[in-house]
């Protein structure tokens, strides 16, 4: 425990994330009476099932030093596939097909990025549009609906007061990905190519394997988020779910990833997603229009970016100052040596 606290206080970004999420929670808990209740906690965890996954997907990509813009389209495609196939095939098989399609799309993106050695933002802008079009094609430009709305009940029943099967699965995914990223060779490779790509490649890490794994994981997470949304509401649209990109990015950045890569982790992603959830759930009580939610989420993102940029500028200034100080010291000592040599 003491070790854990020491680790958190040493990591400035993570402690900032915890502080921020605490502030947001306390603000709403003071202003809204029912905020601190079982039902609201259940609702927050339900939202966490979606936003947490998208945040996790973006966190993995950003740790690898890239950013995946096609997450919303990937989720929409998966939702359309799952909702469309649930009627003829049953929910479990539909989920397996949808998730494997999303994972395959992610892996293909990772392969192309590593093979051509191109920046991910470039290719994922293309796939954003392509996947959206494919989703529209599959949905035939209509809203796809389930015929029997009782089918997806199995993911929304309450378990253990706070949880549902969906949120339990998501927490399980979080733990698995956390262990994978932290303790396995393949997970460490993702950190390596994100933090110092040139050095990692020189040290003999193949670029393709970690890139494919990172993007496949992110595709899987996006697809799972799309599945949960699609099954919960029973409907899916080809053009929907584009707001997930903003929410996921905010969650990832509040969680303390650095855009330069190689920094951050699963714990941060969870805290970031919870912060965004607190904000969204709290704003529901003020009965605001949708654009206000978007406005406040973006303000949160800007606050975090400003904090990160400032701390980076401050760090580099500090480093420069200390470098200059050591140079000065060396100069003066050399001068003294010279002087003493001349004097003798």
């Amino acid at each position, binding site marked *: 425990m003491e070790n854990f606290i020491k680790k958190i206080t040493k990591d400035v970004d993570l402690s900032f994330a915890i502080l921020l999420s605490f502030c947001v929670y306390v603000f709403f808990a003071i202003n809204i009476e029912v905020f601190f209740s079982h039902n609201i906690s259940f609702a927050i965890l339900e939202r966490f099932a979606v936003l947490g996954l998208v945040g996790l997907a973006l966190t993995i990509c950003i740790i690898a030093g890239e950013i995946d813009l096609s997450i919303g389209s990937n989720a929409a495609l998966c939702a359309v596939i799952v909702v469309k196939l649930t009627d003829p095939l049953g929910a479990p098989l539909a989920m397996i097909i949808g998730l494997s399609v999303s994972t395959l799309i992610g892996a293909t993106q990772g392969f192309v990025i590593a093979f*051509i050695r191109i920046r991910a933002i470039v290719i994922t802008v293309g796939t954003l549009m392509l996947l*959206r*079009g494919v989703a*529209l*094609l599959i949905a*035939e430009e209509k809203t796809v609906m389930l015929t029997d709305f009782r089918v997806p009940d199995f993911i929304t029943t309450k378990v253990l007061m706070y949880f549902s099967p969906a949120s339990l699965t998501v927490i399980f995914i979080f733990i698995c990905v956390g262990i994978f990223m932290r303790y396995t060779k393949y997970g460490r490779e993702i950190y390596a190519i994100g933090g110092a790509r040139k050095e990692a490649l020189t040290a003999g890490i193949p670029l393709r394997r970690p890139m494919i794994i990172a993007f496949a994981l992110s595709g899987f997470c996006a697809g799972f988020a799309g599945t949960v949304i699609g099954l919960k509401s029973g409907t899916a649209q080809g053009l929907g779910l584009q707001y997930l990109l903003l929410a996921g990015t905010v969650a990832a*950045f509040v969680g303390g990833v650095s*855009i330069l890569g190689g920094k951050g982790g699963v714990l941060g992603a969870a805290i970031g997603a919870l912060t965004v959830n607190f904000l969204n759930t709290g704003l529901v009580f003020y009965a605001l229009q949708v654009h206000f939610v978007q406005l406040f989420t973006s303000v949160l993102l800007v606050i975090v970016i400003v904090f990160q940029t400032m701390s980076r500028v401050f760090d580099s200034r500090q480093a420069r100052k200390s470098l200059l100080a050591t140079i000065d010291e060396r100069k003066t000592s050399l001068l003294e040596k010279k002087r003493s040599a001349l004097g003798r």
Partner: protein
Amino acid sequence: MSAIIENNQLPFSAKFLQFYKDRTLLAILLSLFAVMFIYGIFFTENYLTITNFKAIIRDAALYGIMAIGLTFVTLSGNFFLLSLKETASICGVTFAMGMATGFGSPDLAGNFLVSLLAALAVGVVSGVIQGYFVGMGGNPIVVTLGGAGILYGIGAWWSDNLVINFTRPHDAEWLGTGSFLGLPSITWSFILIAIAAEIVLRHTNFGRKVYLVGANKAAGKATGHENFSMAIIVFTICSVCCAFVAVAFVAQMDSAQSNYFSAEFGSSGDMTILVIATVMVGGNSIMGGYGSTLRTSLGAIFIAMVDNMMVLQGFNSGPRIVGVGLMIVFSIIVFGLFAKGSRAQE
């Protein structure tokens, strides 16, 4: 140095390839043009009419102007803005507010010049603020993603998410629906802006600086051209282009709403991605330093042409979006493969 030595020892075919490396994408684009054109003549009705070509260039003009603005950002190595349509929408709302209510004072209501200046000023402010954050060292994608939400939120808040109407005999008609020498005004402005941008990039000090900073940030910094001022200037140029398009579009529709540019704008998907697609299909290097506004204009016309043909053939929005998406991915992969071993690897 080593490249020069290698170049001398290469066989003829490789030399040929090297020479056409730069021009390959342009050649591919032009040949695709030709294929599309011939296909259109033989298999699509009403394709080879002057009215249709005017429609194509008019379509291309709307996102072409925005894409020319974005080309400056891309050339200077700042990737792209994800807040294009939101900037356009808040500028459109500003313009419509000015035309409808005159910002609270009835004397100014319907005053075209004041409304235009207000819209452009909003564009300048949003561009400067985003450019400042990017210049300070923020990632352009993330900064503009946040900026997009804020701009959209403010625009929707200001207009209460309602449609702002103003009645037809107004001063901005010449820009919206008027035409000059048989071409719509928006097409003329597209042509003029394209020529002006090309001249600025090729023949002015500033244009060469854009290429320098984009091609090599470190060299730019060493010679005193930091990305800080450059980011602010190029973001402002891009936002002003968005504001101009918004004004023209609102003048045409006589109304504005905060999500006019969001879903299903004109053709495929949303405006932001379409504009980014235009820049990429034209074959500009997204890492900066390579490309031109001429390519962007050609890309805009090409996308408009393909889209127009698909509309005439009776396709729905799904296949059209797939078509544009395939074009982007194809051009990225071709460009990436040709640039392999050079700048794309950083």
